[in-house]
């Protein structure tokens, strides 16, 4: 892995992988200003492939598809990132289109994109799981941009104007800190020259100070969502926990692996699925944001099992808080976590994506190696301690189910 810095101070992290047919590039734009109205950044993100001063939306779609180039943008809570992936021989063509999209998007299709998004949200909400998740995130990040879910967007989208989106575009283009990462077989390409050619004229802000505040959660909350024809109840409970910058990051990852994030041998899987037959899907997750993180547990189960499932969660959560884990279980979880990271960094796109993620967070593109060291150092005491740090009131519990089953909750 190596790193070059362009004249405009944009860092480019590079990893060469021989004998791979497709090159991948990620371009990160950190969001440093809170989203003023729910949906503003979502709309901006969607408008990126909808036309530039050189190419219409249809031109872009055809040019990409004719060359089998994957190029798209994604909006996460703390960044907008572009991903480019194509056959090695088409890399320069891909860069040409990507740089055009980044620099020259016209945002002309604003009205149409608003209409499209307003149509897609109800379609998404027809899936019970999406509806439950929407209710969960909206409440655990109440009054915070991280809680700008689909239904929140529907409430506010009509207040967003084209000048709002233009301003946001201008702002991220000039004021946001940026990172580029590339992985692939470069053959005879001079990556440094290519980056200079296509991206030297983009402004970069070196400082990574963000004005997005840290979200808070004051009280326990139960969110009930009625869906009378649901065959399963959707249950999700979450807590605000330390994020990636915290010394406990690695320990929380291991705890999450042990409890329910990984495969068929985690505690929640064994106890709630294998032994009690309560669910097909049951898991825990640890979600990272710039200014927050969540630890969540999730189960989808027959509605009459809601109480049993909640009791099952409580038993397992209390256990990890109160009973030291065995040395063997800890070692298994660490090896599981470390081994699986290879699986999640197998392709060039996955590698580029992870390098840019770490670089954007200021942790360095090679943070993965440090993280593995930290994982190896996690102790039995760490697991119990972070379980007590993470799983404590307040929490948000969201349950979607037919109304008759919600009464007793």
């Amino acid at each position, binding site marked *: 892995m190596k790193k070059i810095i362009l004249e405009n101070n944009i860092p480019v992290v590079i990893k060469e992988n021989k004998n791979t047919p497709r090159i991948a590039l990620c371009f990160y734009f950190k969001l440093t200003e809170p989203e003023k109205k729910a949906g503003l950044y979502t709309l901006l993100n969607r408008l990126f492939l909808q036309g530039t001063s050189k190419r219409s939306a249809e031109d872009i779609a055809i040019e990409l*598809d*004719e060359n089998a180039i994957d190029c798209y943008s994604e909006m996460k809570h703390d960044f907008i990132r572009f991903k480019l992936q194509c056959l090695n021989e088409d890399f320069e063509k891909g860069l040409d289109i990507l740089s055009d999209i980044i620099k020259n998007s016209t945002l002309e299709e604003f009205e149409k994109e608003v209409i499209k998004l307003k149509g*897609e949200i109800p379609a998404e909400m027809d899936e019970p799981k999406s509806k439950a998740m929407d209710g969960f995130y909206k409440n655990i990040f109440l009054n915070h941009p991280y809680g700008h879910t689909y239904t929140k967007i529907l409430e506010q989208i009509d207040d967003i104007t084209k000048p709002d989106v233009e301003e946001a575009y201008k702002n991220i283009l000039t004021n946001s800190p940026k990172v580029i990462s590339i992985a692939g077989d470069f053959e005879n390409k001079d990556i440094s020259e290519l980056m200079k050619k296509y991206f030297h004229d983009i402004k970069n802000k070196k400082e990574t100070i963000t004005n997005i505040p840290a979200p808070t959660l004051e009280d326990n909350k139960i969110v009930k969502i009625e869906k009378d024809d649901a*065959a399963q109840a959707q249950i999700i409970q979450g807590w605000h926990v330390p994020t990636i910058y915290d010394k406990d990051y690695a320990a929380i990852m291991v705890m999450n692996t042990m409890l329910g994030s990984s*495969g068929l041998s985690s505690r929640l899987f064994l106890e709630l699925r*294998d032994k009690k*037959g309560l669910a097909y899907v049951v898991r825990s997750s640890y979600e990272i944001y710039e200014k927050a993180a969540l630890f969540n547990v999730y189960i989808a189960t027959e509605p009459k099992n809601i109480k049993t499932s909640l009791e099952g969660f409580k038993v397992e959560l209390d256990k990890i808080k109160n009973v030291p884990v065995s040395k063997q279980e800890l070692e298994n979880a660490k090896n599981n976590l470390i*081994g699986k990271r290879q699986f999640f960094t197998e392709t060039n796109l996955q590698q580029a994506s992870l390098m840019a993620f770490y670089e954007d967070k200021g942790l360095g593109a090679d943070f993965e190696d440090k993280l593995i060291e930290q994982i190896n150092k996690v102790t039995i005491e760490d697991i119990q301690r972070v379980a007590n740090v993470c799983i404590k009131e307040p929490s948000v519990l969201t349950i979607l189910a037919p109304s008759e089953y919600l009464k007793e909750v």
Partner: protein
Amino acid sequence: MENNIKKTEIEYPYLTKPVEIYERENGHKIILAHKEGGLVNISSWVKTGSINENDANNGISHFLEHLMFKGTHKHKAGYFDKTLEAKGAIVNAATWKDYTFYYVTLPQGPNGEYFKEAIELHADMMLDPVIPEDEIGPAFQLGDDTVSQKRERHVVIEEIRMRQDQPWTKIYNNTNKHMYTQHPYKRDVIGFPETIASIPRETILDYYKTHYTPNNITTIVAGDFDHEEILEKVIKEFDFKGRANAQNPIHKIDTPTQEEQYYELKGKISTGFAITGWLGPVANNIKDNIGLEIINVILGEGQSSRLYQNLIEKADEPVFNVVASDFYNFKDGGNFFIQANFKADKKELALNLIKKELQKVVDGDITEREFKKACKTLKCNFAESSERVSDIAENIGYYMTVCDNLDLVEKYLETLDSFTLEDVKNIAKQYLQIKNSVTTVLIPE
């Protein structure tokens, strides 16, 4: 090395070495694929799925897949998952109409130790499952709340419930049921809660013995390893002990409906969902399958596709939220689909607009430019599927199990290169007539 083992090789696009195919005297096939990197994948594909099911045992292939993880005579339930996951493995399985497959993807470990242990445990699981009564759980009447031992039967029933809440799955299943009339493909792979609640252990064991035979199993290893050593290892661990081979039934190929069919379902939703399906060619009719794959790219894959551009981007008024096409290959005849989500009060208009777009393609209105784009996309799909050991193995598993022939991988690119626009037009006309279609719509109550 075992005697009488037949070896062939094929050139696999984007891999740096040929893929080796070994067929043992008992019919068990072993495929070795080289891919640089630290990860290896070992999988076994069994030629059974809903293709071998009937009304009485529908769902048994998938239920058995769950129960294969419940221990062997050597290792009790949980050992396999726990041991391999503690080495960073991804272990899982999947069941579909023509196949059931089991896989492990993991880092090789020091001196390839993890890898060898994975081969041992995987072979043990494939050849010697106990399927214990207490892991299946007692048979019960659906709705009986007094059942105390809720084990794997309930897990599968929860999986069925999960699918009942998915609008797309609901309409796919209904369309599928009416596209096929005789063939077992008409049944949903996962089956019904009533069957899963009551099917006896003996029936499941019999099903295992009938179908998990040497001639029905292909074992695939993908990664960077010593081929001779790993071939020996797989042969040693896959000791079938003279197990008799299966006589797979030959099913009559279904013919498409001759009159357009339409079904309407209702649910507590706020938008409309639709799927229109057509029967396609058998999987090893590579020419017609490629033709339909080309049409799929032109009509409904990606943002430059006809359906997306004409019905969403350039629409006179907003009707569709989603509109795309898809194509599935099955041994005895696949499916071509158009799927759409639309505004609930625009149902008639939505269905008419889809028909209009389809008719243009059937009438031969396809440009050379669209045709070239589709060919490039299909070629690039090979590059994509050669990036991960798990994807390489899945692609090989598909060709070996569904098409019965890995040579088709080589033939695929040759056939694609020889395709003409005229061929594509003829295939559209042959397979995608409105009168041969089945549509299911799900709209708000």
